[in-house]
């Protein structure tokens, strides 16, 4: 089988790449190969599928009609097991091969399992695919108690949804506070307090020493000797890029696939984008920035580059970013939270009321902003960071009212 463009994967990076290719090249044969058996969906939606708020067939990002209308061959249930760049070919689990002219690897990431004694001997859940979500939803229907290992976004979403389903939930996190990738301890404390108020036990800064099966229960033992018994164990301790199938291909990898500012790998005609790619970090280095808007942007750049679009702009660098809703409240984080020399921090808010704001500036430019129950436009804050907009003349106004000042600034400079 041959296709001029082959995209491996079917989530945000893959879909935006396909859209971008079709924008430039209406006719070149374009094929999406994906391991998943379902129509394209977002991993971000899965906690809502678990809670029942979203139905699996109602979260489809592209329909069969879309693929037909845009002459894209969508091939689900297809695992790519090896890439041979010298032959421009892919080998599938079925043994079949595909020839490509240009290849995009957008295979995303898979759950990373922590080195916990006994973990492989007990039944546990993860949450990265639609099938995981459907399994977990069924399990929740039968469970009365649960342990969530990991207080990242997926773990926290899942814990909230299980608590709402009247399950006794315990969250265990190795880091000293929840959502440590996005929020500082003071902000996390507000979020943790909300979880505690909703009956969720939060064990932060705790190492899980071992898990074992006891009848129908899973018995977890923490490093300090505390034991927790639960019907259900959900492991959400982060993800790692799906790059195992590239072994021996010559495609350069570190944590993820190393790419340049056009998402091109070290080998001709091979690109990578999204959670699998390791690209320029806005503040230096090469990073895997596993967030949805990042995948969208990288996918689009890769697609345009693959179709030889003359106007493709280089990737400006990954900026951590997230918007997080919990128990009807909103937390937003854009840019860096941690500090280093020369940074100026402005913190405000009424923590007792769950209101928090932290602005980090350096050399008159925004470096990071995090808020809880204090809405700021993440898109505008992101642009102010990317454009290195000089805020020195409006610094006081920005610190006092980042939402209004940001909107005023962007409405003048967006052109």
């Amino acid at each position, binding site marked *: 089988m041959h296709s001029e463009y082959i995209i491996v994967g079917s989530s945000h990076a893959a879909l935006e790449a396909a859209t971008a290719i079709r924008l430039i090249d209406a006719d070149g044969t374009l094929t999406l190969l994906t391991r998943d058996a379902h129509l394209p969906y977002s991993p971000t939606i899965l906690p809502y599928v678990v809670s029942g708020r979203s139905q699996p067939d109602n979260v489809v990002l592209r329909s069969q009609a879309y693929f037909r209308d845009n002459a894209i061959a969508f091939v689900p249930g297809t695992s790519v097991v090896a890439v041979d760049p010298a032959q421009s070919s892919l080998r599938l689990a079925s043994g079949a091969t595909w020839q490509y002219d240009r290849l995009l690897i957008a295979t995303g990431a898979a759950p990373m399992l922590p080195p916990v004694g006994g973990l492989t001997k007990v039944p546990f859940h993860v949450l990265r695919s639609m099938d995981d979500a459907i399994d977990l939803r069924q399990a929740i229907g039968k469970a009365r108690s649960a342990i969530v290992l990991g207080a990242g976004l997926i773990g926290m979403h899942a814990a909230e949804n299980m608590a709402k389903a009247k399950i006794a939930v315990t969250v265990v996190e190795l880091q000293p506070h929840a959502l440590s990738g996005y929020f500082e301890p003071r902000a996390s404390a507000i979020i943790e307090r909300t979880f505690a108020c909703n009956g969720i036990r939060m064990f932060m800064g705790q190492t899980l020493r071992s898990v074992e099966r006891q009848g129908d229960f899973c018995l977890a033992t923490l490093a300090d000797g505390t034991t927790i018994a639960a019907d259900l164990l959900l492991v959400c301790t982060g993800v790692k890029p799906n790059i195992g199938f590239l072994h021996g291909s010559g495609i350069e990898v570190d944590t993820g696939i190393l790419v340049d500012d056009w998402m091109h790998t070290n080998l001709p005609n091979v690109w990578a984008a999204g959670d699998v790619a390791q690209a320029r970090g806005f503040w230096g280095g090469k990073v895997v920035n596993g967030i949805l808007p990042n995948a969208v942007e990288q996918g689009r750049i890769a697609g345009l580059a693959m179709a030889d679009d003359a106007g493709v702009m280089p990737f400006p660098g990954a900026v951590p970013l997230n918007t997080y*809703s919990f128990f009807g409240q909103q937390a937003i984080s854009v840019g860096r939270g941690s500090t280093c020399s020369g940074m100026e921090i402005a913190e405000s808010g009424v923590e007792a009321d769950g209101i928090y704001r932290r602005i980090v500036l350096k050399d008159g430019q925004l470096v990071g902003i995090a808020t809880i129950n204090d809405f700021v436009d*993440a898109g505008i804050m992101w642009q102010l960071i990317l454009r290195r907009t000089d805020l020195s003349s409006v610094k006081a106004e920005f610190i006092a009212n980042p939402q209004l000042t940001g909107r005023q600034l962007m*409405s003048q400079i967006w052109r």
Partner: protein
Amino acid sequence: MGNCFSTLQFHAGRCDGCGDCMTACAQAKANSDDQAYSRIRILPKASGESVELALCRQCADPICVMNCPSGALSKNGDTGVIDWAESKCVNCLLCTAGCAYAGIVYAPEVGHVAKCDLCDGDPACVKACPSEALEYRTAARIFNAYADKEDMFCRGLAACHGCNSELLIRHTMRMVGPEVVVAAPPGCIPGMGTVGYNGQTGAKVPIFHSLLTNTATMLAGVKLQYNRVGRNVTAVALAGDGGTSDAGFQSVSGAAERNDPILFICVDNEGYMNTGMQSSGVTPYGSWTSTTPVGGQMQGKRTEAKNLPLIMTMHNCSYVATASTAFLEDYYAKLEKAIEVAKTGMAYLHVYAPCPTGWRFPSAMTTQVCRMQVRTNFIALWEYDPGNGLQFTHPVDRPEPVAEYLKLIGKYRHLSEEQVSHIQHTVDEKIAYLRQLTQIAAARRPAPVH
């Protein structure tokens, strides 16, 4: 061709920040007078800058849609609006990370994101704006309706740079279509090659080069012959103001009086622009032309222009209207009526055609000059038929000073302050007179039946 969409236009310079649009939006979208519910946000002036706004741009490459993990956001292929489906939205706010305009934001009052939906094509904010700072631009529907229709003129017509007459005749004939016979008396339109050049013809439809004096009557006769042989064609005259107001007037007047079934379009560039810029009967007071020069004795034309379209209403022919190429939707509406009318009676369209070459303004400014003619009330857009009388189609209640229009144009560069105020006075009087006519017409019209 792809779809084009209607859009909201914001004129920052006209906005005084009153906030009526936000109140109207809150009322329309949340039944509340609290501006916090508004989806359009006027931003107060920041350090001396102009007022700006935060509003959904209904992007063609909407990153909010791309960032949506639930499929709740989508670009509507018919309306162009970014639609939000409440049933699918999970409140993750990732859409807000994709927007640099604060066009989709979390609204704590309602507990989810909110964005402008253009009120299903009838935006409340636009109707509430007292300063015309917000406009709902719907001209895209013209493109959608006509872009795929065949252009009835060939490429390479030799009009001057910046000429809007070429634009006008191409637009016009797209709507009229191929079942047509066209008369074009001497003037710029034949001069640019529509009736032929180098043994070729510039038109793809039957066209003849009438005399200045006989266009309307000859066209009416040709139309009668088509009727006699059973062909239903539209008879169209594309004439200049010389061929209409001066030497051509007796035949136009006669055809109008008989209500001959023709569509007569006068393309008014205020003089004989293709023969050396001589003055005509519709050249305005004060204009420099080669026959009304500026020197020791004369300061441009000494007499007033005659109001030709108004004269045409006095003939009681079936339809008379004025139009400007800066207001194409208005023109298309009038042209559509005129084509229909011309099946049985005479339709007269008077379209203004500012001439970069003869009036001396940069060729890139033509549409701006057209726009300013209307905004200053130098010309008025109206239509007339014997049953309904005269009605404004684009009333300008707060016109800009006519001096703002005059200063764009070289042929008025010599004007003294007295001459400018004279022209302003004439414009005011002309509008007052037209307004009286509209009031008379309104009084005569029967009250609408409920």
